[in-house]
């Protein structure tokens, strides 16, 4: 089965990104396809590469980046939600005249159309949020 994932709450504050990660890992292990994960609302904050959690805690962004590299999952961060919250890739930082960018490897910034497209193209859309 083709499963699309929506993560709509922020990391560490909320379990959504953790549960989604575990769900996606289990789904892939069971032979399902997860072509894309879409990050919306505070979920966009998962993609920051500047997160430094204590060493004895899980590193949520790095878990997702590793998953994307290993399985080719397309990790998409909503551009409108990201810009509100100070999440910029190198291109957007330059375009907006900002002096830094913070999107981690494996994630890309794109529009809400990617969420709708995921809903159209997958068999199930599973939301992790509140």
């Amino acid at each position, binding site marked *: 089965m083709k499963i699309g994932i929506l993560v709509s709450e922020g990391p560490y504050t909320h379990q959504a990104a953790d549960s989604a990660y575990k769900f996606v890992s289990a789904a892939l292990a069971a032979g399902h396809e997860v072509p894309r994960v879409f990050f919306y609302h505070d979920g966009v904050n998962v993609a920051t590469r500047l997160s430094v959690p204590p060493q004895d805690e899980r590193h949520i962004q790095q878990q997702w980046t590793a998953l994307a590299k290993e399985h080719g999952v397309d990790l998409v961060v909503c551009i409108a939600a990201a810009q509100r919250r100070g999440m910029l890739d190198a291109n957007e930082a330059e375009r907006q005249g900002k002096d830094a960018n913070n999107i981690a490897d494996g994630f890309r910034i794109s529009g809400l159309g990617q969420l709708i497209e995921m809903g*159209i193209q997958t068999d199930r859309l599973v939301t992790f949020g509140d």
Partner: protein
Amino acid sequence: MSDVKKFLYVNRRAPYGTIYALESLEVVLIGAAFEQDVALAFVDDGVFQLTKGQNTDGIGVKNFSPTFRALGDYDVQKLFVERESLEERGLSEDDLIEVVYEDEDDDWEEKPAIHVVSRAEISDVMAGADVVLSF
């Protein structure tokens, strides 16, 4: 693109206080370009999103309620509002804004897009949807 799917946007939260309602509307507006079968459901505090006379001057947040009235222009024709949620909050249909769309199958007559329905009917709408996005 494959077949048309039934998209349902479920709005559960008050329009202000959190960003969910605004960012839900942003998805609806983008999604309207994809020519899918779109419906919105308003339940719990989500019914406040459609109330008349919203004024956000005191909270420094943009009043986005006029945007709902534009949904008809995006060919969004089904806004289901749960009657029980209205009643539990002392509201009735008279407290809601008007949203109309032009019915291309009926000589472009203007028709109301807001339908106040029972909790059981909302349940049926959810069960019949292919993709449910909950905000």
